[in-house]
């Protein structure tokens, strides 16, 4: 009997620990600490001057007491607000931002195709990055490859920013219930990150993220109503948090010339087509 009771206690304890750590385990990153960059990005060698800000891919969930529901119609306004805030913050750091809009994408089939391919490739890496491997960005572990380079070159920028956002807004009843239950799983929160894919390398050279979540319980977290009501403010907050660790662009620190022979550091339009083909003709001639 006592043995069974102990067993039960042990199981309950384990369950509580698991539930307590669940948000941290399930979360992409915590408290805005998920920012990382390669050394070349840090030292300005591969710091982009122009950045294409791509439309955010986002999800919005309303967490009820028993049920959660994806919200579709409400995301458009929040995505626009996020783009406004990110443009403002990144521009404020000295970068030239080229904002890519849905209207532009829908009017240009080639851009739509390039963006679709790059997004698919980015999301493949993103799934790996968010599995506690943000730190590996600095080792240049993640690559969007040719898809990323083609997109950035098509847009005529040094790098492309791929924002991803998850918003969970809780209902007032679920906030109270979570407070009583001592678990903040339904307190709501906003999570946003963006990776910077360089046009020269196709690699994710930097990754910046932020979490907006002000505690648990009925007075903490983010409620769904508030998100809809104060969307602009929340988006501004999250953009500020995410760009907090993003270094400024300083023209004076940029290296004057890159190693032209290293192919991974070449922009497509820097290749002198005629010269290459003529020289190759000589080198391969007679075979």
């Amino acid at each position: 009997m006592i043995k069974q009771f102990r067993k039960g206690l042990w199981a309950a304890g384990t369950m509580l620990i698991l539930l307590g750590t669940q948000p941290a385990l399930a979360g992409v990153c915590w408290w805005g600490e998920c920012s990382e960059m390669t050394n070349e990005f840090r030292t300005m060698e591969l710091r982009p001057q122009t950045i294409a800000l791509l439309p955010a891919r986002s999800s919005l969930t309303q967490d009820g007491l028993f049920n959660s529901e994806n919200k579709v119609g409400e995301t458009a306004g929040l995505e626009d607000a996020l783009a406004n805030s990110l443009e403002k913050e990144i521009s404020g750091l000295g970068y030239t931002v080229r904002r890519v809009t849905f209207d532009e994408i829908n009017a240009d089939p080639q851009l739509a195709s390039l963006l679709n391919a790059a997004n698919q490739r980015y999301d493949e890496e993103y799934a790996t990055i968010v599995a506690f491997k943000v730190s590996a960005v600095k080792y240049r572990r993640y690559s969007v490859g040719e898809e990323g380079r083609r997109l950035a070159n098509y847009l005529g920028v040094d790098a492309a920013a791929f924002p991803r956002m998850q918003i969970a807004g809780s209902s007032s009843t679920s906030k109270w219930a979570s407070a009583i239950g001592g678990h903040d799983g339904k307190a709501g929160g906003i999570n946003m990150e963006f990776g910077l894919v360089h046009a020269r390398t196709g690699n994710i050279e930097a990754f910046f993220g932020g979490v907006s979540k002000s505690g648990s319980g009925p007075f903490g977290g983010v409620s769904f109503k508030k998100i809809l009501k104060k969307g602009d403010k929340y988006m501004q907050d999250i953009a500020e948090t995410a760009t907090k660790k993003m270094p400024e662009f300083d023209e004076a620190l940029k290296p004057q010339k890159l190693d032209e022979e290293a192919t991974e550091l070449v922009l497509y339009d820097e290749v002198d087509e005629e010269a290459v083909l003529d020289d190759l003709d000589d080198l391969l001639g007679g075979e």
Partner: protein
Amino acid sequence: MRIAIIVSIIVLSLGSFQAAWSEQASVYVPLADGGDAPAVKVAKEQEEQFVRRGIRFNDPELQEIVNRVAETVLPVVADTFINFRVYLIRDPSPAAFSLADGQIYINTGLLARLENEAQFAAVLAHEAHHVAAHHHIQADTYRRVRGNVAGAMAGMMSANAGEGASYESNYRQIAQSEYSDEMEFEADAQSVALISRAGYAPAAAVRALERLRQDPELSVDREAASFNTAESLLERQGRIQRLVNGLGQSATDGINGTRPVQLRRVIEMTIDDYIRLDRPGTALKFVESLIKARPDAFLYAAKGDSHLALGPRPVELEQEFSLWVVDGKRAEKTREEIYAKYLAVEGGPERLAYNLESSVNAYNMAIELDENSARAYRGLGNLHYEQEDFRQAGRNYVKYLKLAPESMDRPFVLERLQHIKVELTKQKEAG
């Protein structure tokens, strides 16, 4: 009002199931207040989101074919909230899905696999029945009730009560709607009635399922597709076959139709998408099935590309996946790491050698069939470049650029040629 909707759903569900069994095309009973159902409201929002995000694949020529078939096969419904329209999505997975208000989405990968118009009509009719019989509304109501019950049972301690939301509410999530087995079979059965009425052979519905069952992806469930999820395709195929037999139709009817020429582009695109999405095993199996039916230079070049992309990885997907499961989660590895891992395991180098050899053979076969096969020269260029045989790589790349001067990847090839030039110059200087 919610209770009224649920009651009418149950009554209609029974009615439409009976109708599906009848030989006559069913007359769908409209759903009172159906326009107020959450599933219909969400469908409208999703449509706006799809347009905004550019999810739809716009190809006027293909859309014309799609619309033409749709006109013949889609049922007439009295519900004012249903307005049928069919769209394409560029995705190689063999999937189709619909939304409560009559939107039907067909993946290019599904279109690429079907052999004729009749099979496409069967898929459309299947999805149309889900809409006309209000399956989305029923499934959504069930989901909400189940979510509440599950949530209440799990209590307030659980953060995952009910339906959890995952990253990105995109079309792939929507495509995984939870229809019951009955709903799927009902839609299969009704598709037979609808295509028969439109003048297509009923057996096309059986063959369409058979085509999808042949897809190597299904065996590993790499990506769930709505057309495949609820009941096993084999069971569905058997049940629908019996239904067709009952109608006195032979199993071979409707198979001999041909693909419209425009669909060739979809097939090529699907193969390219598989390789781009790092699914060369699926690409290879798909290409091989097409070569078996009608070989040509493009298919052989694509076969070469698939072998090259496979590298040290095995062709059989099951082996490939079991290795991933044993060695770790795919989500924690990048493409390069997975490639390197396969190369390091026993048999990896041999598989690489085999795939490289198969790749060269396939490219050469493509050139034999068509000496101007640009794709084959590009493939040979890629292969030799990876093997650091810069002279051969240069020759093949130059040939490729001459044959395909307007190719999208010209900048990429030129960049490689610049590197090749540097390497060859070094070699020349070294004597």
